[in-house]
């Protein structure tokens, strides 16, 4: 996973509330057995017309965002709905590495961390300020080490972020590889649980 430190970009303003995972990536595209190539279908109902033609009117497809914006400014409860990791895969495939919103749905936010996407929750007025910067074509900078966002006019906003997730993102760690180092602790847990709740192990041979 790519390491995350700072990111500078004109952010894409998409401040709609309750954007669900079916909007981010509709179910028919979940039939893939790969993680890549979902970007063209991302936000399909927003970007394509009834005939399946890309309208070019959606913010994602307009200058100066298309092909270069790496920061998405979203609305409240972004990513609600299903657990499909295809949602962050699609967003990654579009080129985004950071999403800023008033709040995120839990599973979506967790899926983002695993894919190196930084999700930042800040107050609505901060989101509005940054969305306006995006609308005006101004760059903003997200700095994970100092947990700050620099907007226009030198405005600095700080944000909270879980320290464990911060370490993961900044080091681009293989989480599974790390957990496997705790194999002994996992085995010890299982041995203990097998004594107290043997019925949970009826199927193990």
């Amino acid at each position: 996973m790519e390491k995350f430190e700072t990111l500078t970009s004109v952010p894409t303003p998409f401040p709609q509330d309750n954007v669900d995972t079916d909007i981010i990536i509709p179910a028919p595209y979940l039939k893939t057995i790969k993680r890549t190539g979902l970007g063209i279908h991302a936000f399909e109902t927003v970007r394509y017309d009834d005939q399946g033609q890309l309208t070019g009117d959606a913010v994602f497809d307009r200058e100066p965002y298309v092909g270069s914006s790496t920061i998405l400014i979203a609305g409240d409860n972004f990513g609600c709905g299903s657990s499909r990791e295809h949602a962050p895969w699609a967003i990654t495939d579009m080129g985004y590495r950071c999403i800023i919103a008033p709040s995120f749905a839990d599973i979506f936010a967790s899926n983002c961390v695993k894919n190196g996407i930084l999700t930042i929750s800040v107050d609505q007025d901060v989101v509005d300020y940054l969305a306006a910067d995006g609308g005006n074509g101004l760059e903003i900078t997200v700095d994970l080490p100092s947990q700050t966002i620099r907007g226009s006019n030198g405005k600095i906003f700080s944000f909270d972020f879980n320290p464990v997730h911060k370490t993961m993102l900044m080091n681009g760690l293989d989480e599974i590889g790390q957990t496997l180092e705790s194999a002994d602790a996992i085995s010890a847990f299982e041995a203990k649980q097998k004594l107290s709740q043997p019925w949970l192990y009826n199927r193990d041979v």
Partner: protein
Amino acid sequence: MPHTMYDKIWSDHVVEDRGDGIALIYIDRHLIHEVTSPQAFEGLRLKGRTLRRPAAIIAVPDHNVPTKDRHMPNPDASSAEQLAELDKNVVAFGVEFIPMSDVRQGIVHVTGPELGMTQPGVTMVCGDSHTSTHGAFGALAFGIGTSEIEHCFATQTLLLKRAKNMRVTVDGKLPIGCSAKDMALAIIGKIGTGGGTGHVIEYAGSAIRDLSMEGRMTLCNMSIEAGARSGMVSPDEKTFNYIRGREWAPKAGQWDVAVSYWKSLASDGDAVFDKEVTLDASDIVPQVTWGNSPEDVVPVTGHVPAPTDYASASKQKAVEKSLYYMGLTAGQSIESIKIDRVFVGSCTNSRIEDLREAAAVVKGKKIADHIIEALIVPGSGLVKLQAEEEGLDEIFLEAGFEWREAGCSMCLGMNPDKAGPGERVASTSNRNFVGRQGAGSRTHLVSPAMAVAAGIAGHFVDVRTLDTGEA
């Protein structure tokens, strides 16, 4: 210090505390299906890793499976490929698999409980947000993404952040004609789709105790629609009776110890919850959603709202958009909304009790002439068999409904069961998102009784006033 049920199950599964509310949590049960697992298996392969504990996993195909003509090849090549990938992976990695031809095959969240895999106090995951369903048994069950599936495959653990505790207390008697679905929708209407974000919901109160296991599953299923990754109900005799004798249940010599452990899981009387919500069940009336978020819900006796009914500018805009997409006019009565299709099924409402509830309304009636298709899709082969033993299939077929094989069906547009652009569905599923049941489809979420009642009347109707022909 007093503890909630969630606190207790969490503590009992901590392998390592990593600080800042994060811990490595042991996972007891893992359900997989064809849609979210292929990339996780691929991840294992790329790193040369194996499954830590295959005995904890069951695989069932559900999202892509056709609900009719199963002897024919799958009509969609990419669905077929995804299903074939699961067939291949379960063999390569040694996972117990319940194929389409097995009578136990069904929607993962129907199959898990039927196997007795779902038990109080277990941690249970699946790459599907409706895994919250299993909390009905007092399990800590939640949906995960594919990276977490892979993590769980390799380590039988997940690195999780502890959630906050929320309690939704529902006291009083649920009126006749209302069911757990109406309760779930009423709760979401009250707290909103973000109301439970960051929390695990425990449902408590006399109305919850009165619910059957099926009803509790419906309620916990929709916790995610309120933003909560898990919902749970304290286990009781109903829970124990449901589990007893099932394939994965504790054996005779283990049963008493298991039950006494299960009884110890209930939240302590003086446990403190971060958030409390209360509802009176007797106030609940049959619910119908009108918009593109499950929180867009009103009683069947109500009207489609106007954007100006809402204070915030963003909500006003969202309402305006939803009314346009849904083809509705502000102020029109819910009962005036004509429907084109009926769908009774999904992990929310496809269990035997749901089918009985629907059949009681349908008995001796016919669906309205203009209905394009009315599907009854049992949640598993076992539910289907049980319903057929009770003669429910005959009741549905005589009324003009189709009687299908088990699967996710029209809940989401991944298999042949879809609604066309502009078509309006009275649906017992869980999400009314834009395009959820097919591009341009219009979904109204309702209970099984309300869905079939709408099919008979041709428009939404208060099932309490519809003559059911029953005494």
